């Protein structure tokens, strides 16, 4: 019987951590708990619906539960169904890999005005997360603030034609919503120079493939991928990349939003029907992240560790999660001292609402088999149906 480890969060960081631990110590008793009734976190609800190849890592994570004896305990929310001190008492080690569910605020006057939406809130709704708010109306000219991969994901989905969403898992309601937006122009605003933007060049190449876009660049410099994309696109939908433009204020003027930016050419104003902020993620306040980070780093080391974006902030993509998980696994195994009196997963026995990995496999099969021809999956979207798929089958 190996040591008992609880991992909170079944997203890429939690799963890679479990994978790295089990590779080195196959007899560990690993339990992965998640507030959602389904596993994979960001892979399911954060990776873009049209980036199915990226979601392929879920096949690795499934093996944790089907072959490597890790257990999934879904629909179990830390701080609601179970407290962190209880978890820490029951396990030799607890790893917090809950990610960062909150959108970082713009931090400028007017950033709370109606029509200002966080990219996380928007993509959660697009990707049909059970806790997501309704999809907002974006109007004819949304402005995206931020030039990382999330900003480009949002831009790409807004700019795609229905045909270009073929093979994705974008659900029927978000698909209808996209078609109904009637967007006539999109502006992307970023503080950095074009050549210093954080998105991957391959994301810009992907934009250049879209039939509708006409990419344009304010303050160009030697950003090769962008310059190539600008030259290669001439569709009916203007997409203005405005670099070296630091947002300073948002106002409501005549029913529209007005964004003021500082640029090398002085202040400029951009009119927007909506503003989507995509400048990173923060803790949503469900946990006291600062205190927990401090405690996890405390000496002498206790039994609390943090992983992924919860630990590092919202930097790095999936490969970085994997690298960090491998380092974390080594660190944990160096220090762990199993205590056979720890009850481990026995403390979940009282929670009848927990769903396991078999439950997910039934949902997964149902979602795959109910996908229409132009989609690879049709997600079950509401919590009740995720918990009771029978109600979905009768629908």
């Amino acid at each position: 019987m190996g040591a008992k480890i609880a991992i909170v969060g079944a997203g890429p960081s939690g799963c890679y951590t479990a994978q790295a631990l089990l590779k080195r110590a196959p007899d560990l008793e690993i339990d992965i708990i998640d507030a959602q009734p389904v596993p994979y976190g960001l892979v399911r609800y954060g990776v873009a619906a049209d980036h199915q190849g990226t979601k392929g890592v879920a096949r690795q994570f499934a093996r944790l539960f089907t072959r490597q004896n890790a257990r999934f305990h879904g629909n179990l929310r830390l701080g609601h169904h179970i407290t962190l001190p209880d978890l820490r008492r029951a396990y030799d080690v607890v790893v917090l890999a809950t990610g960062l569910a909150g959108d970082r605020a713009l931090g400028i006057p007017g950033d709370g005005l109606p029509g200002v939406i966080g990219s996380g809130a928007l993509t959660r709704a697009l990707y049909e997360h059970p806790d997501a708010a309704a999809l907002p109306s974006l109007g004819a000219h949304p402005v995206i603030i931020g030039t990382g991969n999330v900003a480009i994901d949002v831009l790409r989905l807004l700019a795609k034609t229905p045909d270009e969403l073929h093979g994705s898992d974008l659900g029927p309601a978000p698909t209808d919503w996209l078609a109904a937006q009637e967007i006539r122009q999109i502006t992307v605003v970023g503080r950095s120079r074009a050549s210093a933007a954080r998105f991957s060049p391959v994301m810009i190449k992907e934009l250049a493939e879209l039939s509708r876009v006409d990419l344009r660049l304010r303050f160009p410099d030697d950003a090769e991928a962008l310059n190539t994309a600008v030259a290669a696109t001439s569709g009916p939908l203007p997409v203005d990349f405005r670099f070296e433009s630091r947002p300073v204020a948002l106002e409501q003027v005549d029913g529209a939003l007005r964004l003021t930016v500082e640029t090398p050419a002085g202040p400029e104003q951009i009119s927007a029907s909506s503003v989507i902020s995509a400048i990173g993620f923060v803790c949503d306040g469900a946990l006291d992240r600062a205190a927990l980070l401090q405690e996890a780093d405390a000496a002498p080391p206790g039994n609390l560790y943090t992983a992924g974006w919860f630990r590092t902030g919202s930097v790095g993509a999936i490969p970085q999660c994997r690298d960090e998980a491998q380092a974390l696994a080594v660190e944990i195994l160096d220090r762990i001292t199993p205590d056979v009196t720890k009850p481990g997963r026995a403390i979940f026995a009282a929670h009848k609402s927990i769903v396991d990995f078999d439950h997910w496999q039934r949902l997964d099969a149902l979602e795959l088999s109910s996908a229409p021809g132009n989609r690879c999956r049709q997600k079950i979207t509401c919590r009740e149906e995720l918990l009771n798929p029978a109600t979905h089958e009768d629908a």
Partner: protein
Amino acid sequence: MKIAIFFGTETGNAEMLAEDIATGLEAEHETSLADLADSSPEDLKVAELNVIVCSSYGEGELPASAKPFAAQLADSQPDLSDVRFAIFGLGDSEYAETYGFGSMKLAELLVARGARALDERPVHDAASADLPEDVALPWVTAIIDGLAT
């Protein structure tokens, strides 16, 4: 037969496929499994057949765990004329322009050092419904059968 299986991976998918191939062959063959990150070109000279699984990342680049190995090939200029290898790629046809380029680049580097590539280089498409192991296992079995006759 003595078969050495190597993988170059960025997110772990190529590693998983390499493990599947090792599992599929170990009953009948003497197999070894290693990350290219932990290997040197000299390690290709041990087995009768080297099977390499290699993904692509970003703009058709080599995956992270294959990069140090590729650098060694370039720096040490080893003579690999006695080396036989078969390479299987992982790619995503959504990125058509650079589809499977990671495995292609690695194959070219090996051939440039004199190694002999067996068979064509299949690439599993992440955008397809096929499972990589369902494509790779028959492929590797056919290669081994071809060598045995």
